[in-house]
């Protein structure tokens, strides 16, 4: 039997959030955390969380498991538990809770929108594709794979303090994805939008983002690249 403790809060019923304990029979299997939640949902239909692909590519089920952010669908119990006997599940930290494990991602998406996450190219499009060498394309690896699950940004203290002004690791990873794309022509404009004391420079290299990214991406490195681009543009 596994003890699972889950953060519960229904704004229509509860005055304040509380932790609710459940006992789950895993039959000795190393289930994914999402499987456990599905078992509990069948028992307690009031428990809510987001989920979709259940294979770690859609980014719906980001949550905090035993203190670490991750995707419930690709986090096996053994990994979430470590040496602990009890599974503790909380919503992603730093964002307002709507209900149970569901947070309001509005602030996170707003930061993403701010960096103009779309290709800008003023030259007329050719009849076929725009050419790009495999080397130029290789620059996008480790960037375009981001699934917007918010595990990184909500693990970042700088984002906790300034979610309205600091773009956060996820948004900055995407900012660099477009800055470095050989097909994008708006590099200068993009950089000047980022050159304030908050958007990029609130990153203090804490690297929580790198530690939690379920896709193994490295936002801190991308932020470093952006900073270098900003500096070389302005000195």
């Amino acid at each position, binding site marked *: 039997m596994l003890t699972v403790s889950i953060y519960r809060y229904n704004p229509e019923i509860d005055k304040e959030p509380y932790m609710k304990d459940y006992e789950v029979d895993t039959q000795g299997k190393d289930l994914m955390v999402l499987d456990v939640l599905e078992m509990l949902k069948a028992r307690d239909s009031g428990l809510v969380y987001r989920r979709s692909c259940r294979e770690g590519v859609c980014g719906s089920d980001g949550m905090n498991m035993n203190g670490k952010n991750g995707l419930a669908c690709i986090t096996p119990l053994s990994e979430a538990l470590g040496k602990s006997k009890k599974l503790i599940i909380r919503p992603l930290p730093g964002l307002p809770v709507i209900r149970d494990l569901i947070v309001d991602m509005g602030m996170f998406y707003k930061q993403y929108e701010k960096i103009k996450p779309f290709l800008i190219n003023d030259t007329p499009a050719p009849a076929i594709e725009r050419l790009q060498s495999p080397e130029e394309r290789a620059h996008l690896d480790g960037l375009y794979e981001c699934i917007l699950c918010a595990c990184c940004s909500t693990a970042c203290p*700088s984002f906790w*303090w*300034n*979610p*309205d*002004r600091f773009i956060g690791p996820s948004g900055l990873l995407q900012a660099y994805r477009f800055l470095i794309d050989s097909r994008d022509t708006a590099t200068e404009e993009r950089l*000047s*939008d*980022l*050159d*304030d*004391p*908050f*958007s*990029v*420079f*609130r990153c203090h290299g804490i690297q929580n983002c790198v530690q939690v990214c379920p896709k193994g991406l490295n936002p801190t490195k991308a932020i470093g690249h952006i*900073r270098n681009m*900003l*500096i070389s543009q*302005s*000195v």
Partner: protein
Amino acid sequence: MVTQVTNFGRNGVSNWLIQRFTSVVMLAYFLCVACFFVCNDNISYELFNAYFSSTPMTIFSTAALLAIIAHAWIGLWAVSTDYLTTRMMGNKGTVLRLLFQTAYSSVLFIYLVWGLKILWG
């Protein structure tokens, strides 16, 4: 882009560069002074005075003083905009932040004038 009048540098890059540059100045000054203390066994007032009142050292001390002021301003400003905000503590966040900023800028200004007076007075 987010702008802020209480900010020291003109933008993010200048803040970042100033912070790095001033760190280097402060580190160099610290090593220089540490070296003086380590290399001389019995430090008398005369020795101390002679070391610090030489022109190159006075210029270096001034640079270090300015570096500390700038560094502290930027650092404390960052602290104030992280923790003393309306997000963290409601409307009193702005008041507290302004008070805190006034306090540290006054202190830093006093240190600046006082320091310059010591060094060049």
